[in-house]
Structures are given as structure tokens and as C-alpha cells.
């Protein structure tokens, strides 16, 4: 069955009324789950799994996948409105999304997030449809040295995220790298930096760090400045609540960037959508004509990461469906669901169970459209949240943060941790340390350390393995170039001054 016939067959499955309904249910639940911090798609899919056992496999997987990519749409909402990431993949969206909201462009940011999600989500599914088998081979060719180089490339972005002082950015990054080493070391089974606390053996939950240093710190810093009745300006009129033509035009490259980076990183079983969104944000800033405006609320800064985390979904399904390899928590649960239904994801899935394979792929085109139609009309409604007076809104934010932190772990210890990270974030804001590098270090540090140690174990301690492999070497060169940019800038300024004198 070739691609066109397969896809047509898929649409005949996905457009059956029952399957359309499941697609809608999945997308709707996904959006809700995405909006609520602390409740993630993995937990939701797992909770709903028993209910799907008696469903038709095509309908079941269509719904579960809907939750998976729907959550990516919803995750940006609280990032933009409250500086509180709804999902780990939406952390980067806080950087420019929340700043847009502060300038009265919350509606525009939400609209751009939805449109970027739609465009990149659709490109991701398109790539899944057309080039799944070759791209799966690419994913397998990635070994530990390549992962190390990819993470180095990500870490080099720190120079773009640091703002005024590179030294402060690097210090912030180091704290992030340190925090990520806490817990049990996979290679030796020994605990590191746990201070004798058994609750720290599993390491620190990413969402607790992110909510602490972003949302809580923001509340504290704003409260200190004297509470006005309304936190952020919300313009009147529907037109002002949607993205303007100029804003959309500024995002043209971001849509493409997010789509490509998100898909490629998504295909790799050892990466993840937070990494995809960071890298696409970094690329967007690196190629921008006005990089200095990033972090003050530019629409591209929302479109790139939001696009990337949605294209990531299409990418993550490639190894799942064509190799039977799950890349993350949610896809692992989807794999166990497929196996329970008697479906066997792998090289033969396309031929043996075309209904499920192509039905799922086709449903994702429909699902992305459903999500766009579901999310765009909600934009004006969500933007109204900011009309709530601060003395009501702030306690709600704190409440949601605490519930979110508690629900990821079920222990009070983690609420104390959340408070600690809130204070850390507040101190950083007051002392003008950028918080984004801390999050970057936290996201990449663990994967990077692991990849380095794996590489060295594979090469029996020979460091040259990192530079003799072409893919790994070229990514390391790119990382080095990015690291050199501030130096070049300084050189340039010095030259200009020298010429002027």
C-alpha cells in the first residue's frame, strides 16, 4: 500500500463518526490536561488506559494520541498568561510569551502559539506520513557521541539566553547543571547531593523547578512592587486580542524552524520536547535581525518553541510506529496500549494493521485542525483571566502551583522544594540573574552527562570518539561557533571604536 492509498484508507477510518468523536474527546482532554500544571499527558493516558481496553484499537489509539498532542497545545496557555508552564515542553514559551502578555499582547501570544502549534503539528504529521522509514534509520544512527554533541549545542545557547551579563548567565547555568545531578546516578547506583534525604533519591522534578523559578518568583516580585488592582493590561475589542498581521509575518521563519527542529529532535529516542523547544528558540534568536529584543516579548520567541514541541509529537511517533521504540513516557504507555490490543508496532505495522497505522496518522491531521478550532475561539476568553484583580489572581496562581507540585509527587517535601525554588527565582530576579539558563542547564545537564559517560565507556576512555564521527563533530563545531558569537561582537565593537578614533 503506497502512501497516497494508505492515507486515503486512513481518512476513511478516521472519518468514521465514532473515531471522529474519539479524536475530539482526546484533543479536548489533552487541552485541559495541558492547561493544568502538574497533570501531564503521560499520567492522563495511563489513567484512561483501562477504559480503552474494550474499545476498537483504531479509536482507542486515536484518542490517546489526541491527549498526547492536545496537551502540547494547552501547555502554552498558562506559560503566557501566568508565567507558569503547563507542561515541561512549554517552559521556553514563558520567556517571550509572558513578556508579550505584560505588554498587553496576551491574546496575540495565545493566538500565535495556537497557529504555530497547528502549522508545525501538521508539518510533523506530514513528515511522519512521507518519510517515516528513512528518518527512523537516521534516529538509530544517533549514538551517544551524537547525543553529547546535540546537548552541547543546546548548552551553547546559554550565551544567547544570558542577557546583559554572560558571567551571570553562566553562573545561573551552573546552578541548573548542579541541580540536575541530584539523585541516584544511573551508572554507579550511588546517590549524589541528596543530603541524606531519601526523597531526593529520584532527583528533582523538572516542573517543580520551572514553576518555582518562573511563576512563584514572578508573583513575589510583582507583589513587592505594590499590588495594583489589575496585573496586566488587557485591551478591549476582539481585534486587539488576536495576533496582528505584522506579528504573524514576523513568525514566518519561526514556523518553519519549529517544524523542522521539533520533528528531527522528536525522532530521537534520547531527546525530548523540552530540548526541541529550547534549540528552536536558540536558532530563532541566532538568526534574528533583532536578537536583543528576545526576552522582551517577540512573537517569534513564542512561535518557535510552541511549533517545535508540536512537531516533536509527529517525530516521536516515528520510532514508536516503525520500530516499536518509545522515546518518552507517554509514547511508552501508548506502546503498551497497542500491544494489549494485539497491535504490533514495528516494521510490519503498516502492512499488517493498516487501519490502526493509517487511521492514527490521518486522525492527526484532523486532530490538529480540531485543536486549532478549539483553541482560537478560547483565546479571547483566556485573555480575560488577566482582568481578574491581583489579590484574587495571585492566591490562585500560588494555589495551582502548590497543587501541581503536590500532584507530581504526592509529598509535602516537594511543596517545600517548590517554595525554595520560588525564593531562589525571586532572589535571581532581584539580583538580575537570568533564570532561563538555569532551566536550560537543568533540562540538558542530565542527558549530556549521560551521553558523555556512555560515549567514553563505548570508546574505552578515548575522547577522540566525539570528534571523529562526522555528525557529532559538525554539531560540536556549531556549538563552538555559537559560543564565539559574544566574543565576535566584542571584537567588532572594539574595531568600530578603533576606526572611529
Amino acid at each position: 500500500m503506497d502512501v497516497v492509498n494508505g492515507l486515503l484508507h486512513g481518512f476513511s477510518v478516521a472519518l468514521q463518526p465514532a473515531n471522529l468523536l474519539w479524536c475530539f474527546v482526546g484533543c479536548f482532554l489533552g487541552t485541559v490536561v495541558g492547561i493544568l500544571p502538574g497533570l501531564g499527558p503521560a499520567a492522563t493516558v495511563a489513567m484512561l488506559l483501562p477504559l480503552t481496553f474494550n474499545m476498537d484499537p483504531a479509536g482507542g489509539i486515536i484518542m490517546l494520541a489526541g491527549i498526547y498532542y492536545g496537551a502540547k497545545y494547552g501547555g502554552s496557555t498558562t506559560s503566557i498568561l501566568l508565567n507558569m508552564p503547563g507542561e515541561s515542553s512549554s517552559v521556553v514559551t514563558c520567556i517571550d510569551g509572558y513578556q508579550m502578555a505584560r505588554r498587553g499582547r496576551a491574546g496575540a501570544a495565545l493566538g500565535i502559539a495556537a497557529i504555530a502549534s497547528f502549522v508545525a503539528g501538521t508539518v510533523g504529521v506530514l513528515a511522519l506520513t512521507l518519510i517515516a522509514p528513512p528518518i527512523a534509520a537516521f534516529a538509530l544512527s544517533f549514538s551517544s557521541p551524537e547525543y553529547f554533541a546535540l546537548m552541547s549545542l543546546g548548552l551553547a545557547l546559554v550565551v544567547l539566553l544570558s542577557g546583559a551579563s554572560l558571567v551571570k548567565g553562566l553562573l545561573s547555568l551552573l546552578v541548573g547543571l548542579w541541580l540536575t545531578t541530584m539523585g541516584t546516578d544511573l551508572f554507579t547506583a550511588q546517590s549524589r547531593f541528596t543530603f541524606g534525604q531519601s526523597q531526593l533519591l529520584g532527583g528533582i522534578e523538572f516542573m517543580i523547578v520551572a514553576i518555582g523559578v518562573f511563576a512563584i518568583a514572578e508573583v513575589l516580585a510583582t507583589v513587592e512592587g505594590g499590588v495594583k488592582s489589575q496585573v496586566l493590561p488587557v485591551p478591549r475589542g476582539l481585534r486587539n486580542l488576536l495576533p496582528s498581521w505584522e506579528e504573524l509575518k514576523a513568525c514566518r521563519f519561526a514556523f518553519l524552524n519549529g517544524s523542522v527542529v521539533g520533528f528531527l529532535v522528536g525522532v530521537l529516542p534520547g531527546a525530548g520536547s523540552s530540548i526541541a523547544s529550547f534549540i528552536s528558540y536558540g536558532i530563532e534568536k541566532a538568526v534574528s535581525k533583532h536578537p536583543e529584543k528576545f526576552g522582551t516579548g517577540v512573537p517569534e520567541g513564542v512561535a518557535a518553541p510552541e511549533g517545535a514541541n508540536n512537531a516533536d509529537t509527529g517525530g516521536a511517533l516515528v520510532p514508536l510506529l516503525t520500530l516499536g521504540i518509545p522515546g518518552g513516557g507517554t509514547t511508552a504507555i501508548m506502546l503498551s496500549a497497542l500491544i494489549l490490543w494485539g497491535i504490533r508496532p514495528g516494521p510490519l505495522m503498516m502492512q499488517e494493521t493498516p487501519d490502526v497505522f493509517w487511521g492514527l496518522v490521518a486522525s492527526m491531521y484532523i486532530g490538529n485542525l480540531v485543536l486549532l478550532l478549539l483553541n482560537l475561539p478560547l483565546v479571547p476568553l483566556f485573555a480575560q483571566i488577566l482582568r481578574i484583580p491581583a489579590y484574587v489572581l495571585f492566591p490562585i496562581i500560588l494555589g495551582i502551583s502548590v497543587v501541581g507540585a503536590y500532584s507530581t509527587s504526592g509529598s509535602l517535601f516537594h511543596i517545600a522544594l517548590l517554595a525554595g525554588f520560588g525564593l531562589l527565582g525571586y532572589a535571581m530576579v532581584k539580583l538580575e540573574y537570568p533564570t532561563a539558563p538555569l532551566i536550560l542547564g537543568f533540562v540538558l545537564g542530565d542527558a549530556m552527562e549521560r551521553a558523555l559517560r556512555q560515549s567514553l565507556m563505548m570508546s574505552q576512555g578515548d575522547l577522540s570518539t566525539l570528534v571523529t564521527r562526522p555528525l557529532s563533530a559538525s554539531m560540536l563545531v556549531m556549538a563552538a561557533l555559537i559560543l564565539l558569537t559574544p566574543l565576535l561582537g566584542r571584537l567588532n565593537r572594539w574595531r568600530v571604536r578603533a576606526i572611529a578614533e
Partner: protein
Amino acid sequence: MLTRRHALAVAGLLACAGASPATAEFKPTRPIEVVVHGGPGSGNNLFGRAVVAAVEQEKLATVRFQIANKSGGGSTTAANYLMSKDGDAHTIGVFTNIWLTDPLVQAEAKARLHDMTPIARILVEPALVVVRGDSELKTLRDFIDAAKAKPGQMKQSGGSITARENIIRQMLMNNTGARWTFISFPSGGERLAALLGGHVDVMILDPAEAGEQVRTGKLRVIAQVSEQRLDAFMDVPTLKEAGFDIPNVPQTRGIVGPPGMPADAVAYFVGLLQKVTATPAWQKYLQDNQFEGAFAGPEETRAFLARYEEQIRGLLKETGAKVVR
């Protein structure tokens, strides 16, 4: 500290002694909490849910059974939680091998399985030794010979160094004198991708995880870690049949109660679990996952765990792990 330990030991002895003859019959009066250490979708979460599903479908109990996820720090959070329920008759936990190994290597993990009340061992999980489908290694002997020819250069992907696949590696190395490298990856997907991508040479994994790859020829099974050949892999030798006489390292799952669980409650759960394992739903669960039923009562389970801990402690030291207890 001493008195507390002492009290626990006495409570444990009492639980053991009282478990055999029927004392006053225990009837649960509120929902039973089933503590699992893995997050949603993990093997022991699914195991817990399969127990709960069998209880509910066959109406084996008068109260509800609910899963309580206590993930974090491997098994530590769940084990600590169960330890804190001293004497409670309405909380049980799902244990696996890492409940034994975590306290052995981590000073912070203080909750140990033999301070709690073992109720039943329920199943053992076999495993497969696999290489890539296009590999020139046709048998485990081929692999061992290759490893001997290039000491340290053959590679095995797996999880933590305390996981069963590394224990088996250590025993095979001791048995043959060959040496190869064990490389840890956090998720099963990454381990498999490393093997399929040709970055490592061998892997030991669950039959259910390997099934599709084996069927499509992407992986070749060169030995199975099991007492008897599995139905689905009748043509593959067990380690013993392949000529490697190493002790079996069973990956087990079972049910444990908090310290000092009343004897009548232990008896109630043993009876209940016997009924659970006889249901068709349970048999299907075993079959789907290619697990082997291995039911054992409280005393036998306690003895099994003690024996197993001794066996594994020595091997962990040999693998290079720092054993703290």
C-alpha cells in the same frame, strides 16, 4: 533505634508465626491501598492494576482496591511509605527485585523488605539474550568467544548497574572469564535503539519487549534466562542448555504488607491472592507478558528473599557497585 529495630523484629516473627493456622478471621472494613513504586505505565504499576482488575471482575473482595503511586528514588518512596504504615491491615505493596537492591547500595534507602511482612511471591519474569538480526553471532558461545578475543570491547546495553541484566552479565563473566562492557541507558527504548543502531552488541530484555523485533528478524534470540524454554521460544536454549551453568536470577514480583501486619490479615491476603492467580484474567495477563506463575506463601517468600539478597549482595560488589549494607 535499637528498641525500634527490636520491636520490628518481634512483630515480624509474630506475623510469621501466626500466619499458618487460621486465627480470628480478618474482614477488610475500608478500601485497600495497593502501593506501587513505578509511575503509570511501568511494569509494576500494570502488575498492581492486573491484581486490582482480577479482584474487581470476580468480586473477590467486599471493599475496593485502589492503586497508590508512590514513585521516586526507585523503590524508596514506596518502601518508606509502607514502613510508615506499621501494623496496618489495609495497605499492601507490590515488591520487585529493586526493593532488595536499592537499600543495599543506597545509604538513604532505609526501608528494607525483611523488616516488612512478606505476603506472597506471585510470578517470575524470564528474559531473553538478544543480538541484532544481521549479527554474525549465532549463539551465546559465539558472543562469549568474541568477548574473550577483544576484552572489554564488546558492549551490552541495559539499565542501572543493579538491574538483573548486569547481575547476569557478572555471573556469565565469572563463569567464562570473558570481559565486556555494560552501558547504562535510562529507558528501555534507548537501550533497544542502541542495539538496533549497532552501537552495542548484546542486550538482555523482557520477552514482551522483544517479541515484535524478533518476529520481524531485527533481533535474534541467542539464549533465554528461564528454568524451562518458553512456549514462544521453543528453539532457543536456556543459559544452562547453552552450556553456562550459572544460578538462576529470577526477576520476581509479589505482595508485601507493612511491618507488624496482623496475622489474620496476612492469611486473608494470601487466600485472596491465591484466588486472584486462579482467574482467567490473571492467566491471560501472565500469557500476554510471557511471565511464569510462581506463587509462594509468606514463609517461603521470606526465605526466598533472604536467600536472594545474600546471592545478589556478593554479585553487586563484583559489578563494582558500592554496597552499603
